[in-house]
């Protein structure tokens, strides 16, 4: 057992990488839920994003095109959810579960040719002076662009929800869709856009796993990350910065426990493996004790009966 073998700087750098897929999926789902829609298909959209991004990156040799394709793939799958819940007004919970199952199956089919293939490597930021700084360099200035993008998305979602009229309308639709309709806002159109944004973010998150974190394709490789993201949104009280905090906390504990396992700490592996889930939930439950609550129209079906 040798805990001193764990390098704290590399630990922080790798926890950010571990957290990014969850962060991307969760911030997308946050927007969806703020618009009053509960999409339980995050896992399905992530895995579709993982394989579409992987396939396009391999075929074109460009990780960037891969990431773009993953966002499109996730958004396309979310269109199925849009059709079920916004057009034929099906139950959102059942539709979301179906979306996950469908996505897992479809991705396995799409990915048959890609098992064992290595994807092109995603370039990392390399700024001559900054990236070479001792501690800050590896943590702040030598990641891949998608990681920075994920943080930028969180910041802009926060700003849009708090300071802009578009954000206010989105929150209004999630809060009381009947009232929003009575004021003349296009509830269904706004929700469709939110759902597609959520799908694109989940797709990006999935591709981050298959192109950066693991870099390879295996069936079912998202392994429940979509569900963690869903839980994270709830425990983060639908607040963007708390989603970031929760995702990094989860990523951090995951990386620490892997390091501890490697260092041979005398704690049974099962306890270490469950620790990220436990610690994240406990911290966020404590944080969410204030009066913030779910969007009031969350999961309710809207029908303009006029």
């Amino acid at each position: 057992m040798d805990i001193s073998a764990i390098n704290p700087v590399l630990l922080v750098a790798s926890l950010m990488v571990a957290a990014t897929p969850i962060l991307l999926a969760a911030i997308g789902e946050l927007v969806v839920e703020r618009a009053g829609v509960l999409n339980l298909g995050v896992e399905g959209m992530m895995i579709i994003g993982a394989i579409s991004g992987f396939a396009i990156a391999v075929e074109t040799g460009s990780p960037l095109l891969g990431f773009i394709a993953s966002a499109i793939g996730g958004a396309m799958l979310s269109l199925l959810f849009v059709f079920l819940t916004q057009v034929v007004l099906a139950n959102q919970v059942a539709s979301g579960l179906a979306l996950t199952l469908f996505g897992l199956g479809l991705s396995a089919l799409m990915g048959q040719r890609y098992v064992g293939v290595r994807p092109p490597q995603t370039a990392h930021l390399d700024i001559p002076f900054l990236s070479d700084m001792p501690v800050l360099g590896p943590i702040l200035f030598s990641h891949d662009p998608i990681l920075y993008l994920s943080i930028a998305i969180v910041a802009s979602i926060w700003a849009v929800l708090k300071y802009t009229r578009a954000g206010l309308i989105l929150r209004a639709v999630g809060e009381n869709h009947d009232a929003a309709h009575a004021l003349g806002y296009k509830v269904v159109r706004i929700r469709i856009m939110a759902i597609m944004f959520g799908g694109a973010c989940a797709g990006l998150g999935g591709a981050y796993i298959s192109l950066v974190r693991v870099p390879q394709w295996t069936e079912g490789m998202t392994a429940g990350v979509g569900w963690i993201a869903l839980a994270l949104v709830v425990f983060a009280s639908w607040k963007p910065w708390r989603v970031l905090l929760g995702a990094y906390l989860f990523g951090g504990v995951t990386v620490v426990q892997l390091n501890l396992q490697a260092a041979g700490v005398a704690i049974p592996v099962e306890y270490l493996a469950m620790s990220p889930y436990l610690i994240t939930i406990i911290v966020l439950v404590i944080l969410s004790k204030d009066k913030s609550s779910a969007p009031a129209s969350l999961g309710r079906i809207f029908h303009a009966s006029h």
Partner: protein
Amino acid sequence: MTTPLLSLQGLTKAYPGVIANNNVSFDIGEGEVHALLGENGAGKSTLVKMIYGLVKPDSGQMLLRGQPFAPAEPRAARTDGVAMVFQHFSLFDALNVAENIALGMETPPPMRDLAAKIREVSEAYGLPLDPYRTVGDLSAGERQRVEIIRCLLQDPKLLIMDEPTSVLTPQEVEILFQTLQKLRAEGTSILYISHKLEEIRTLCDHATVLRLGENVGECTPADTTASEMAELMVGSSLKVPERAGKELGDVALDISGLSVPSPSAFGTALKNVHLSVRKGEVLGIGGVAGNGQDELLAVLSGETLTEADAVKLDGQPVGRLGPTQRRKLGLLSAPEERLGHAAAPDMSLTENAMLTGSVREGLETGGFLKWGEAEAFAEKIIKEFDVRTPGPDNAARSLSGGNLQKFVVGREVLQRPGVLVINQPTWGVDASAAASIRQAILDLAAGGAAVVCISQDLDELMEISDRFAALNEGRLSTPRDASGLTVEEIGLMMGGAHGMEVAHV
């Protein structure tokens, strides 16, 4: 004559199975308060939705200051100076006042300027509001202010108000009327929808009456009596409930020394309540909402259990018995909340008839339900109480408030109760339905049943009760004969004097 502000010409709108508006025409003048009168389901709401752009008319046209006016959506109507205060508030509980107001505006200024403007306008019209408070924490009256201020900030030419006073206390109504009069003085026209005739007589310059979707007449409210307007609305003369002279029988329901702690954080505890009702008697219980009415009903119906001796039915202790056992003994109740308490909204009328009728009407044997007889029972209620619905298979939710209320009351009355406890029997019900419900209660009492009627409508209580008592902070005043009670005496009973004489100077 000058061009009217808004002229409606032959507006027609049909929904599958029902014509909501049939060839409706009328004019609203500049600076006029125009009343739109009609019973529930007369087509008032559909008509204003057309003016506000939420619904498109099938035929007919509207002219705004002589120009064709056909708003495709509320946004267009707002741009043209039409604003609306909704019957069920269109507010967002989790957002603050300023955000709610910004959502109803086309081009809201930045939040800080908007907040200042809200303060300024709300104080100018005597409706003070804090722009940063969360709407979910406001009272019904304050929420309505938010809606009104939202409209006023857009400088409307026409303000539509859909049943604005149904949620307000009398004091709040007075403030609202002052505001509306101020608006009229500034030249704003108001389309005021209501079925409260006295309000319309005090406030409105002109009235249009709708019945079954058609314009059946216009009048000047100040020169027309309330009963004339009611007749226009209903289409026949209103029957005032008649009470037969009757002899009272033995004590049917007796409560003595009942104290019950509050069932929830927002409830009221009942404190040392005494009451007794004799066969053939109607006991009216008044009081401002939230002073223990719901708790008293729960104690009588059996939803809240008490000491066995605290509630006695025909001399037997029933305090430990639940609602079904009490029903078996003849103690029936009809709670206030129609959707969710008195009726299950998504179940059919047959199923709702089964829910309370199974015991006394013998609708089940050995745990098996007799659907045929339940349907017959539901049909009987529909027929005898003139419930307007296509049939007993319709969901309770699909009925209008007044019709569902008739069904709920009829369901209990037809089970021949020994004692009937009823809370707010005519809440949200139009004039003719209310009159028939009151008549049914009086007929029931004339047939020898004891009735406890809890209501906030004092006129109603004076019309039907033999004796009157008031609830105040969970205490019940000593019941007194209703005939000869003056308004001041009633006020004192409600205000918590508890029998103490106020010094007369």
